[in-house]
């Protein structure tokens, strides 16, 4: 794999994982600070064990059960759908048609729900805090695993993909342990925009390569310029997204574009 694809792999897995870890941290902090740290950390540990098992099974099945081009097509398609969901939300947020994601607001909502919940205890743990932490970490973690596996398998470098995710995890956990509060100053909306672009780019690249399964021989299709086409795809998705940010409010029938100049990236809540 060329160096541009390697950097793209590392950037995508690190950035996407960073965003997911921040969201998981918010949930765990809310449960720990309002209910029980023991239960919140136990739920987190249980989720991590579940994720390791899930990764091993999914990775083994995908590597051993599918030929390469079919793997590229299947995983590329899933990645493309997943990435375009992120890109769609980023475009809607940047154009003002959807509220920006606010980590502090998310923390307040989780904490409020925690205060209103009952005091059920199981296995010596605050059960509400355990279940919410488990579900939050597992769900955010599945997205990390999905990105690591899809990128890693298609780029034939699962180790590097996992390394990018692990680095993001270490940084977020360290920052969370120091700050002891939600990482609200992280430009999450901007990062999600960037991740959406990267996932859409690589999803397009690999899904199209995987269409070779329908040709005689079943070999992967090669893009002109090979890995350089990744940069062209990234530029294309970026230009399209900026056009849609500009046009979306008009198409939505709001009459005119926002009066103030829309910044190059979505504004972050202070």
């Amino acid at each position, binding site marked *: 794999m060329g160096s541009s694809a390697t950097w793209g792999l590392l950037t995508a897995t690190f950035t996407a994982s960073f965003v997911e870890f921040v969201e998981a941290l918010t949930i765990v902090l809310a449960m720990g600070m309002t209910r029980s740290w023991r239960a919140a950390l136990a739920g987190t540990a249980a989720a991590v064990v579940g994720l390791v098992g899930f990764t091993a099974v999914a990775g083994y099945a995908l590597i051993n059960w599918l030929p390469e081009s079919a793997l590229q097509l299947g995983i590329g398609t899933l990645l493309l759908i997943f990435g375009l969901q992120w890109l769609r939300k980023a475009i*809607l947020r940047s154009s003002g048609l959807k509220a920006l994601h606010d980590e502090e607001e998310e923390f307040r909502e989780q904490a409020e729900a925690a205060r209103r919940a009952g005091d059920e205890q199981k296995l010596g743990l605050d059960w509400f805090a355990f279940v919410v932490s488990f579900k939050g970490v597992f769900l955010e973690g599945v997205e990390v695993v999905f990105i690591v596996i899809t990128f890693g398998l298609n780029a034939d470098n699962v180790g590097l993909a996992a390394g990018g995710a692990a680095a993001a995890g270490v940084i977020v956990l360290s920052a969370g342990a120091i700050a002891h509060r939600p990482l609200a100053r992280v430009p999450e909306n901007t990062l999600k925009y960037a991740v959406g672009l990267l996932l859409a780019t690589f999803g397009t690249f690999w899904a199209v390569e995987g*269409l070779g399964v329908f040709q005689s021989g079943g070999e992967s299709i090669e893009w002109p310029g090979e890995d350089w086409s990744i940069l062209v795809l990234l530029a294309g998705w970026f230009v399209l997204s900026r056009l849609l940010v500009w046009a*979306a409010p008009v198409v939505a029938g709001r009459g005119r574009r926002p009066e103030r100049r829309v910044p190059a990236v979505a504004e972050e809540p202070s």
Partner: protein
Amino acid sequence: MNIVRGIGRFWYDFIVGDDWKIAAAVVTALAIGALIAAGTATGASWLPPLVGALVVVAFTVSLVVDVRR
């Protein structure tokens, strides 16, 4: 059965999310690309950019339909 339904719901929400039109657009564009690829000799350099463009157009249409609701 509830567990199976729950697992199915989880994966549907995870992959398709809250906008089924994106999944439909991607699958449609790639299905058209598959038909073209099946009828094309290997090594055609115009094929990847064409299918890429199909994906871009399909996403744009799905987003326009979404915001016009």
